[in-house]
Each structure stands twice: as C-alpha cells, then as structure tokens.
C-alpha cells in the first residue's frame, strides 16, 4: 500500500514536472505569427526579363501562411507559405491568361505553390538563409535563399508584428516550364515581403 502510494506520487510529480517543462519550453519557443494578408502587408512578387531589354513585374494576389520567430532563438524560426497560383497578376489580362494556362503555370491542374522551411540559419541579427521545400507546378525542390529581417515591435493598435523579405531566383525549366521566352528570360526572380501579426 505504501509502495503503491509512493509510486503514484512519483508518477504524478514526474508528469507534473514534464508538463511544466513543456510549458516552459513553449514560452521560450518562438512566437507564432500569421502573415497579414488581411491587411495586405505581405507581397509575393515576381520579375522576369522581357527579351533581355527590361524587367516585367507581377505578383500573386492570394496567398496565406505563417511563421514563428523569436529574437532569442532565431534559428528555431519556421515559415510556410501557400500561394494561389490562379491569383497571378501582371497588370495585363491577356498575358495573365497565358501565364495561368498550360504553357506556363497550368493553374487548373496545379492551383497551389507552397514553401515550407526546414532550416533557418541567422548569420547576424537580421540576415539569415532559409532552406526548405518549394513546390511549383507539381515539382518539389529543396531551395535556399537569403532573407532579411526588416523589423519587429508593437503596432499602434495593440498587436505585435515582425517582417521579413527574401528573394530567390528560380529556373523555369526546373519546374516544368519550357516555353521559350528567350535566352535572357530563363529564370524568374521571386520576392517575398511579409509582415506577420503575432497570434
């Protein structure tokens, strides 16, 4: 009887301590942020050379995602973004229609492009390299690209925000886009400018 009681007490305290340990870890762990798509303080842009003579810019209007980040443990940060490929907008309906079609993104078959980080390594307070899986047009590739922390802090309305920018260059043929846009236009530059609101 005595032994049983002791076991119970021990088990309970063990459970309790592991519970508090978990709680302690989660408070140290990065805070979670939701990308502020509602207030449109986030942008997914692309640019590609036109004939090699100029830059053509466009963006994806619909996407969502979140990230977790803590200044004290920046390398534990994570990010995921899901882009609605049909929301492509290059300010020209005929071109958008072509880019959404089978020659390019084939959005009816591949409505989503996603990025999920696997590691984020900060080299100083604001610069990091993000590595993760990027899926576009059904092709998933591991990509790495630099990101910069722009800033974080209280907003004037009682919330807490943090923002980052990252750019990367994607080779079109890596993602099954083989339409000939000319020798200067084999890669598209992607830029992600996001602000998250802490949840």
């Amino acid at each position, binding site marked *: 009887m005595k032994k049983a009681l002791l076991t119970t007490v021990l088990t309970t305290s063990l459970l309790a301590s592991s519970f508090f340990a978990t709680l302690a870890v989660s408070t140290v762990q990065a805070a979670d942020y939701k990308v502020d798509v509602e207030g449109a303080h986030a942008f997914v842009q692309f640019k590609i050379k036109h004939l090699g003579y100029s830059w053509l810019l466009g963006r994806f209007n619909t996407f969502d995602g979140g990230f977790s980040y803590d200044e004290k443990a920046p390398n534990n940060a994570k990010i995921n973004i899901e882009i609605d490929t*049909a929301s492509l907008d290059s*300010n*020209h*309906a*005929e071109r*958008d*229609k072509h880019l*959404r079609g089978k020659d390019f993104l084939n959005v009816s078959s591949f409505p989503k492009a996603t990025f999920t980080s696997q590691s984020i390594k900060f080299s100083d307070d604001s610069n990091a390299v993000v590595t993760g899986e990027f899926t576009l047009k059904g092709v998933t590739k591991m990509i790495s690209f630099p990101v910069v922390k722009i800033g974080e802090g209280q907003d004037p309305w009682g919330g807490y925000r943090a923002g980052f920018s990252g750019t990367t260059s994607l080779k079109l043929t890596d993602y099954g886009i083989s*339409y*000939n*846009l*000319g020798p200067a236009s084999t890669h598209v530059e992607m830029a992600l400018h996001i602000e998250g609101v802490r949840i």
Partner: protein
Amino acid sequence: MIKNTENRYGLIAITLHWLMAIAIFSLFGLGLYMVELTYYDAWYKGSLDLHKNIGMVLLVVLMLRVVWRMVNTTPQNADKSASLVEVKVAHYAHIGLYGLMGTLMLSGYLISTADGRAIEVFDLISVPALSFSFANQEDIAGSIHEILAWTLIILSGGHALAALKHHFINKNNTLLRMIKVIPNK
C-alpha cells in the same frame, strides 16, 4: 435586286451572309493557328491583333445583318414541301446561329478588355472596355470563346450540309438563291 422580296434574297443579304461565312471560318483557322505560335514567332503579336480587328469589325457586320433582317422581308421557304416543323426548326436554327455568333464575338471582346484596356481596331477606332468586370473574366470568357467557336463551326457545317441536302436531294433552290439573286422555283 438589292433588297429581299417574298421569294428571293437580295444582294445585301447574300453579301452579308458570305462575307460573314468567309470571315468566321478564317477567324477560326487563325485562332487555332495563333495560339500555337510562340514568343519568338514574328507573327506572335500580329496574328492576335488581326484576329481582334477582324472580330470587332465582324461584330458590327453582325449587327447590321440583324438590323437588315428585321427591316427587310424574309423570303418564304424555297422548299414548298417542307413540313411546318422543319420550317420552325430552320427558323430557330438561324436565330440560334445569330445568337451564337454574337455571344462568341462578345466573349472575345471580354477577354481582351478584362483589365479595362480598350481594343484598338486597326489603330483607327478604340473600343473601350465595359465599366465593370467580373472575377477571372479573361479565363472564363476565354473558355466560353473556345467552346462557342467550336460549336459555331460544327453548326455551320451542319447548316452547309442541310443546304447541300436541299440542293442535291430535295432538288430545290435553297442553296442557289443564296449564291445569286434568283427567285424561288
């Protein structure tokens, strides 16, 4: 000669008919061809411009044709032996073809004007976009345009076969009176 009468088509109706027939089949061929061209083809831009130009002119021609049909006499049937049902079917098939042509051209217009851009017809007339648009307008209008184009070509083929049937099997002048100004037998 110029106008229709009770028993024959006039020159204007015949001209409008064949002008549109040639233009529509040409636009269909051009449409199929131009979407296969790629960025570095010299006619990549020109083919699309020509398609839009002819299409917009055709929309005006169609409106003139409908107005001409309404203000003018419609000749009686060439086939006197046709049943009332056949006559009705032929009548509504023709109305349907007008509606189909109109909707087809309108859907093309909605693709190019989806972002508020005007269509510059032969660099002479600027046809403005509507003051409103709907979500994914260029994609929806594009799908409709493609489906209706095939539908129109198939139905026009049926229309041509029906004319040939009247000519060779029923041996009346349904076809001939649309080629030259002659009265019904």
